[in-house]
């Protein structure tokens, strides 16, 4: 397996992202999932039977901007709404309220995605590739359907993309089960990029890969991002991976962004107690023999069915006061970052 793209030392961005103009603007995005209730359930609920009628508020009032050629990292624990937010940005799900625009144009209109300029790479390359389809068909289907290439051009097009993601073009007629996890993720990347997107949403693209394969796929991502000038939303629970690829980072907790700012600032001087706790929780490579002390965040994530009043983090927060229990903090500027905390 070789990387076809020459090593490209893509350092931290030189031009300030703001100078390149916004690409994606999300305004007050909210997405609720209402339970599907049968008529019987509704009647039973009306008479006070224990039927779950509460909606899951997966994403609540989230606003952010992704600038052109920028990678925004999105970090959070399971259930915080990061994948839902990724799907909203990619136009796979529609928001309950709020809107999301790509250079001023809405990404969704009447429940349908309006653009092919946003593509997605999903976490599980076992589930995201059709097992009964040869990978050449998987890669060329979108471009043919949208008129980017003709059917006659498809074989050369597929061979070119396989080479660009470091696979042998001779494997084009194989099925997904004939590939390893890392190779499948390369196919998924080729499928997404074959649509010539400007924006790539990556939802945990390396979470299911071994460390040595993860490094190969991350390198491929860095190379292609630089070569194609991609704008990315990179979602991961792995703080070190996000740090590595992101220009800016957003931290989510229970459906809201609690801190967003330049990666270096968020990682070295986190302002929100949740960000601090999360960074302290990550096991560090200990090269010295010192005794290690852990500083875990106390407690667990509350249910998104009934988020706590005030600041959603207050039940677990060492700095929580009466104000935090009563009033929800808004995102407010702190240096180059924005933080939603009364005590930042």
């Amino acid at each position, binding site marked *: 397996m070789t990387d076809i793209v020459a090593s490209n030392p893509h350092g931290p961005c030189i031009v300030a992202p703001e100078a390149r103009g916004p690409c994606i603007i999300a305004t007050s995005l909210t997405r609720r999932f209402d339970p599907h209730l049968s008529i019987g359930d509704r009647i039973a609920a009306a008479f006070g039977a224990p039927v779950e009628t509460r909606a899951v508020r997966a994403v609540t009032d989230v606003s952010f901007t992704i600038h052109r050629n920028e990678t925004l990292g999105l970090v959070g624990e399971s259930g915080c709404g990061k994948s839902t937010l990724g799907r909203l940005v990619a136009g796979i799900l529609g928001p309950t309220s709020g809107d999301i625009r790509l250079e001023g144009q809405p990404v969704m209109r009447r429940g349908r995605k309006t653009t092919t300029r946003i593509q997605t790479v999903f976490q599980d390359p076992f589930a995201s590739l059709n097992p009964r389809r040869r990978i050449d068909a998987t890669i060329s289907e979108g471009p043919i359907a949208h008129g980017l290439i003709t059917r006659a051009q498809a074989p050369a097009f597929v061979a070119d993309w396989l080479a660009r993601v470091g696979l042998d073009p001779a494997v084009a007629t194989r099925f997904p089960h004939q590939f390893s996890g890392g190779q499948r993720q390369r196919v998924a990347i080729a499928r997404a990029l074959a649509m010539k997107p400007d924006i790539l949403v990556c939802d945990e693209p390396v979470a299911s890969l071994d460390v*040595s394969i993860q490094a190969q796929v991350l390198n491929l991502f860095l190379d292609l991002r630089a070569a194609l000038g991609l704008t990315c939303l990179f979602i991961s629970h792995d703080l070190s991976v996000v*740090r590595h690829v992101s220009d800016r980072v957003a931290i989510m907790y229970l459906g809201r962004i609690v801190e967003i700012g330049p990666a270096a600032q968020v990682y070295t001087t986190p302002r929100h107690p949740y960000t601090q706790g999360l960074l302290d929780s990550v096991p560090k490579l200990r090269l010295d023999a010192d005794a290690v002390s852990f500083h875990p965040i106390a407690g667990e994530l509350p249910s998104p069915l009934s988020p706590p009043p005030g600041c959603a983090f207050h039940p677990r927060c060492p700095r929580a006061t009466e104000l935090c229990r009563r009033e929800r903090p808004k995102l407010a500027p702190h240096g180059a970052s924005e933080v939603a905390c009364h005590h930042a």
Partner: protein
Amino acid sequence: MTAPLLEVTDLRTHFFTRAGIARAVDGVSFSLAPGEILGLVGESGSGKSVTGFSLIGLVDPPGRIAGGSIRFDGQELVGLSEARMRAIRGKRIAMVFQDPQATLNPVLTIGTQMALALQAHRQAHGRVTDRAAAERAGAMLTRVGIPEAATRLNNYPHEFSGGMRQRVAIAMALLNGPELIVADEPTTALDVSIQAQILAEMKSIARDSGTALIWISHDLATVSSLADRVLVMYAGRIVESGPVGAVLRAPLHPYTRGLLDSLPAMAQPGQRLAQIPGSAPSLLALPAGCPFAPRCAHADAACTTPPPRIDRPGRQALCHHPLDAAA
């Protein structure tokens, strides 16, 4: 130096499949002192889990232990009858697996399952009354940080969160006061904040109770913050072993070095990572000589012959070109 609690010598666990013999564990030797925490690190297919399953006698056909010895507190476990193995498994050697959803019985309450685990070993500590079982189970749940343990005993597994379920699994492992716990990727499925809580608990439990721990993981950082010693496995062999700090500071084996350099935490943000080329070889078609040679930057003609064992104080590696010799 006290006598080792566990001494594994030249362990070979092979899977006899239609496609050929997969040598999942091929000549693994190590020992473990009472109360020691040993990290067993490797990527998928390296044989780390099969090593763990071999220790507790849970290798299913077509796999079997084809050779070698596992001495636990002086007793040979390889070839032990299933009845005698059952007296040890769950009592003196306990296990914690990756997926607590799969290890807990979904149709029994936690209290019932814990009482069964106690009663299964009643030969060892006499009859256990229901009340005594509930008391002991409650105490263990409290020990692993589950609040309101007495009422939680009446809950079913689905009423616990993932992190709490893993705590229940750990409490069950501790129930019979084992001398050794084999934990196979116990925090892989958990969020970082919950993982940190469980690592902290495990470390203090091992220290307080003097229980030895084998922590199987793909995550070098987790192992480095928990273990005293580390074994690095590749293609069924231990390619490097030693004190965790020394191994990570100055690895002897190019594979260990490569694994460390692959971590984003070791690189400048945005820079390409130092990657190991290629992927792990199929166990059915291992290259002759050193199995890592096809991916190794230091490989030469010598590497087509089996690598020699390199001995350094407290450390070992299997390599023709150990990294400390290159300098």
